[in-house]
């Protein structure tokens, strides 16, 4: 039952959602809405389980005196700091919690993301070399797009933003559509395997 229970729940829930799409305005839709609501509740529990697991992993790192345990301390202090400060306020929209969010998490997260520019600059300098015809095409496309998306591109020539738009509209769209269709077919196949119980990775190795 430990193995088959989750598979049966998954099969029934999945079939309800799929079948309901073909029977508009029937009891199947009511059932689908109920299943969807349960999925949201399960999602909320998943956040709780994930949080507990995250804390457990980092507490273990600290207790075992691992080399990089300082970062685990930072994570736990941040996690419980926000939790203990936020819980008595009743909601994350409370002005004091919002102030902490705006003055700590927002600038720190934005800084982390902004730091990527240095890695991208360094990587672009090293990677975009005219080694092969394909690499040259990639290099030219990158340069046109980088110029076309900023004001300076238009100052150099009206042709640059036009070429940049063409690259996004045609070669990029064609490539992305291929990737999307391929990924969608893969998703359908995987969903089918999950539904009939062949794919069991999501059950945490049971069975």
């Amino acid at each position, binding site marked *: 039952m430990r193995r088959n229970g989750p598979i049966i729940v998954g099969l029934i829930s999945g079939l309800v959602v799929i079948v309901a799409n073909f029977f508009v305005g029937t009891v199947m839709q009511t059932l689908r809405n109920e299943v969807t609501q349960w999925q*949201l509740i399960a999602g909320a529990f*998943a956040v709780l389980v994930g949080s507990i697991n995250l804390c457990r992993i980092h507490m273990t790192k600290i207790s075992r005196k691992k080399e990089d345990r300082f970062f685990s301390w930072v994570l736990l202090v941040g996690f419980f700091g926000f939790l203990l400060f936020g819980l008595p306020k009743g909601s994350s*929209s409370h002005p004091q919690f919002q102030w902490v969010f705006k003055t700590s998490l927002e600038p720190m997260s*934005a800084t982390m993301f902004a730091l990527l520019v240095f890695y991208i600059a360094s990587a672009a300098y090293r990677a975009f070399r005219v080694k*092969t015809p394909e690499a040259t095409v990639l290099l030219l496309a990158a340069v046109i797009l980088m110029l076309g*998306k900023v*004001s300076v591109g238009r100052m150099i020539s009206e042709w640059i933003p036009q070429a940049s738009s063409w690259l996004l509209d045609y070669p990029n769209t064609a490539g992305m559509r291929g990737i999307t269709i391929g990924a969608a077919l893969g998703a359908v196949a995987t969903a089918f395997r999950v539904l009939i119980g062949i794919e069991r990775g999501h059950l945490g190795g049971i069975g």
Partner: protein
Amino acid sequence: MSFWEKMERLDRRVIYVLLIAAVAFALIKPVGLAITISKETQATYDLFDGLPPGSIVWIGCEYGASNITELQPILTCVLRQGLAKDLRFITGGMWAQAGNLAESAWEDVSADFPDKQYGIDFVNVGYRPGGERLLPALVADAHEALMGRDNRGTSLDDLPLMQEFKSLTDAAAILVLVSGTPGEKEYIRLVTDQHGIPIVAGAVSVSVPEAMPLLNSGQLKGLVMGMAGAAEYEVLIGKPGSAVAGMDAQSFAHVLIILFIVLGNLGHIALGKHKKKA
């Protein structure tokens, strides 16, 4: 080591220092490079401009605080444009920081619209867990999907705007601000294509190539592309802000990176490495 060898193997710290200098210079002393409105940003603006007063717009804040530089200006711009036109907004999302980011935007914008009130013109329902399954739940019964409360903990029954919003299909248009998954594709697949609701997106620059097929197919009615798009929107609503200020820095940074690429390649060619098979 020859000059070209140096150019070909430039220390990454040199790149970092010059990049900091270029960005800092542009931010401290902006040169005010001209900003031209793209057709994609204009289409987004036109969609909201064409909605009748009183229309409800759902804004999906599907991003995290790390993307505020590019996406937060889009959110504040659309709120400013819409509130000036008497549109009403409900914000929420599948990303954990959706509630706080929407609250930040409302704080920034509401001071300029003293006649607009929370609960009547704007409601922030915040983050709800469950990933993309939130969307069909919002379509089926928004109040149930939101567990009957907004992000401030107020009962939805006490908010006049929410009395007119029982389902996501009550929205006249949807704006989704995206930096990954779940994002605009989920909205299109689960909501807008099925129910014929016009949708526009604001995307971080790296997500733009992924959104382009949806724009070209007409599934997205408009697309605001990263900080450049945000700057265009600020120009359109006549209130230049952080995105316009950041565009000079972005221009300088791009030009500098291209210079490095050119120098690296000149070194590569001068040393004859391009003749060797990769």
